[in-house]
């Protein structure tokens, strides 16, 4: 078995005990990438020299007595290519940023760097994180390691596939409508989107600013806790990052669920849910019950409207955020005879079909005469969705449901039907609308492909979400299953 198959906590222990070096661990991950990534296509940019330099520095730091309480020191990570990295090309998987080399690190990246992380490279995603399959990448699709003819989900498909294929120890992604949880489900890995405001968005190329959150993909819930410990906290560079105290998330992993009240929202089991997905999730609920949880049904009646709400609000915010790509200050630029012609030509050639579609849709719902009917209406429905979650959390500590209505679908299956593609996020979007923490963990296979269990918590209660996920993983070994590559 490759060292790259280790979890963060396993690797940290071996590194601390001097049994392996960071250079050995990093070399193993780079070899794994070399062997597999021609088929998986998880990475857009590889940084092997940087990785080995950081690994040597981590080994030197450890030799100098550092390392206690630093589980990420010398551990290799893959970063979604919407996170800006100083000196390393950051493309958002878009032609318009194909040659953009940031001159600073985003806060999440800087926090990992200062804790001695090893950066393997940047992972593929749907262009500007808009999509559910990673097929909207301006460069190439990523393949699901469980079946290379299927999608890894999206938009953080490269980050999810890299963890599933052991092409890294952990990775970072972003989640605006499900872009961490849905690919985590489809690739059989653990992925958590923390509460909106937990992690600074500074240096995350903005898609929909009221929804975007950074979070980790890991091989288990314990690793998710360790990575969140490094990432969370107030940052003066992001006024929407929240100054609440950040707990030690690892301390929340008690291994038991005594008294934890689990709500099961019936709307998440509606028509369209694959029978194999439902069976695996129902089985998982029994595991939670046996571990001491009290499980009961509940209702979130506006669930069915969240998708429409999202596809108004997110494109509206995107149409404003992506106005900055004008070919003047950075990125691709196409010349024309006048300034408006240059903007038109640059954006025509630089953006792919889905990004154009969302900018136009967002422009439509914000335009004079339609604003109240679409954008304001959606914001009001967003309030309803949030109120229903608030009410449910008076009765329950977490809500548990499927992450995705289906297992991984075939590459090309939904590319000509945007609405069908949008529907694959129907079970993850409500969580973003309410800003809540949500995690997906593997809970079995259906037709040989992974099924994800979604655990939703109260705002700023990642601890209970992680506790439930960790306890489930103490009782089962679905998170240890790996694709045969």
């Amino acid at each position, binding site marked *: 078995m490759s060292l790259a198959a280790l979890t963060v906590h396993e690797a940290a222990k071996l590194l601390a005990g001097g049994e392996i070096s960071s250079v050995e661990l990093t070399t193993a991950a780079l070899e794994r990438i070399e062997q597999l990534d021609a088929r998986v296509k998880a990475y857009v940019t590889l940084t092997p020299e940087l990785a080995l330099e950081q690994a040597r520095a981590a080994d030197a730091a450890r030799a100098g007595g550092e390392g206690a309480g630093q589980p990420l020191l010398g551990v290799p990570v893959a970063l979604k290519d919407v996170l800006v990295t100083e000196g390393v090309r950051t493309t958002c998987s878009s032609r318009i940023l194909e040659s953009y080399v940031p*001159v600073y690190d985003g806060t999440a990246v800087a926090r990992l760097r200062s804790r001695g992380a090893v950066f393997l490279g940047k992972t593929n995603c749907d262009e500007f994180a808009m999509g559910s399959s990673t097929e909207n990448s301006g460069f190439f699709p990523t393949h699901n390691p469980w079946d290379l003819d299927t999608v890894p989900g999206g938009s953080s498909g490269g980050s999810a596939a890299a963890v599933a294929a052991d092409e890294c120890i952990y990775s970072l992604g972003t989640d605006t409508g499900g872009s961490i949880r849905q690919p985590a489900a489809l690739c059989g890995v653990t992925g958590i989107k923390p509460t909106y405001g937990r992690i600074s968005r500074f240096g995350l190329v903005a898609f929909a600013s009221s929804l975007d959150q950074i979070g980790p993909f890991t091989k288990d819930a314990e690793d998710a806790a360790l990575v969140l410990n490094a990432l969370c906290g107030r940052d003066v560079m992001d006024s929407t990052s929240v100054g609440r105290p950040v707990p030690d998330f690892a301390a929340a992993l008690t291994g038991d669920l005594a008294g934890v009240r689990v709500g099961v929202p019936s709307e998440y089991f509606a028509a369209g849910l694959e029978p194999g997905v439902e069976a695996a999730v129902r089985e998982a609920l029994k595991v939670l019950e046996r571990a001491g949880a009290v499980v009961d049904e509940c209702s979130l009646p506006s669930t069915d409207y969240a998708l429409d709400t999202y*596809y108004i609000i997110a494109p509206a915010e995107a*149409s404003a955020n992506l106005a900055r790509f004008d070919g003047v200050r950075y990125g691709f630029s196409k010349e024309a005879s006048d*300034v408006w012609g240059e903007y*038109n030509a640059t954006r025509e050639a630089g953006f792919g079909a889905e990004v154009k579609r969302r900018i*136009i849709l967002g422009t439509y719902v914000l335009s004079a005469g339609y604003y109240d009917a*679409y954008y304001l209406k959606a914001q009001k429905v*967003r309030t309803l969705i949030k109120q229903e979650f608030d009410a449910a959390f008076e009765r329950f500590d977490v809500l548990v449901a499927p992450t995705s209505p289906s297992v991984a679908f075939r590459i090309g299956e939904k590319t000509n039907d945007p*609405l069908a593609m949008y529907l694959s996020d129907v079970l993850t979007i409500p969580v973003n609308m309410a800003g809540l923490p949500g995690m997906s963990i593997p809970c079995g296979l259906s037709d040989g492909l992974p099924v994800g269990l979604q655990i939703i918590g109260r705002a700023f209660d990642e601890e209970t979400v992680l506790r439930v996920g960790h306890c489930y993983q103490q009782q089962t070994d679905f998170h240890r299953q790996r694709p045969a590559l």
Partner: protein
Amino acid sequence: MALTRAEMDHLALLARIGLTDEEKDRMASQLGDILQHMERLNQLSTEHIPPTAQVIEATNVLREDEVRSGLTREQVLSNAPRAEDPFIRVLPILE
């Protein structure tokens, strides 16, 4: 119902995105389907519901107005397609 060509022309102008005729036709029909799906929101009564623009409680986050070091001019210009230090060359916006 698909958007009209005139609507598509207007949206492309507002968004400053060049679109081919073929792209406009395809997108007009796709957006029609998406907007039709959104009509479902009218089934919900929201007359007395306040809008939510963002979910955190913070408003008007302020900080001291202090001088801090920022990026150098070289750094700022390093990604500009047509940088001519210390400027970025652009086409005229006024006749």
